[in-house]
């Protein structure tokens, strides 16, 4: 079997969940390199931190709100994968492990949704002010 045939053959296999998770971890990592650095620079140099109105005005710009939304989403996905990995490695008792994973899933899902809603809300406030 030639090298090419072998790789085509491998590509036909369904991708396992573990591989998918690995890819998501790397994809969010690469996205976060750019987004988190951009956020850090903005945080340190531009935002008037004590003022929610300044924050809203900043998020009123569509590109900023979009970047912030994507950063929040990527950060929570990355956080979920990382903490899930730690639970898998260090909690051995199945019932404790399941409980920890349930807690993690609920907390991350809830926080992600509410935080994205907050970004959206601040974006709209920023447009109208």
């Amino acid at each position, binding site marked *: 079997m030639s090298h090419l045939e072998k790789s085509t053959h491998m590509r036909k296999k369904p991708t396992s969940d573990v591989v998918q998770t690995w890819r998501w971890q*790397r994809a969010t*990592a*690469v996205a976060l*390199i750019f987004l*988190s*650095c951009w956020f*850090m620079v903005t945080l*340190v*140099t531009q935002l008037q*931190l*004590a003022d*929610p109105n300044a*924050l*809203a005005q900043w998020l009123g710009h569509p590109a900023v709100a979009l970047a912030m939304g994507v950063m*929040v989403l990527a*950060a*929570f996905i990355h*956080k979920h994968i*990382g*903490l899930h990995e*730690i639970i*898998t*490695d*260090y909690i*051995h008792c199945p019932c404790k492990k399941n409980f920890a994973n349930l807690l993690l899933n609920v907390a991350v899902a809830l*926080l992600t949704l*509410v*935080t994205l*809603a*907050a*970004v959206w*809300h*601040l974006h709209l*406030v920023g447009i109208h002010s």
Partner: protein
Amino acid sequence: MTTSNESRPLSPHLGIYRWQITNTLSILHRLTGVALSGGLAVLSAWLITAAWFPGYFTQLHWALGTIIGQIALFGWTVCFYYHLANGMRHLNWDLGYGFKLDEVTSSGRIVILFTMFMSIFTWAVALGEVPL
């Protein structure tokens, strides 16, 4: 002699290894990741209170301004730069580069220097010591 044991531990046994730059940086990646997930929760609280609870936003801002809050923020800054730099080191490995022992050691040293420099520089800018 090797025996199969169902209840064998799955996680790395940190206690039996000598601490070297390689394994120290490896476990620090996890620890800083855990710390940063706490930081992300604060970032969420910052956005959520700014959107709907201005009173709590003011309280959060006050809390982050106290000495404990400032130490926490500085700690998160260090964790951020460390996890960022070491994460890029990991991505480089994923691409298949930098596996030789001397490369692993020197990239580890670069990560430490980057973290120290950027953390101090960022706070110098934030506190107005360095104009940008």
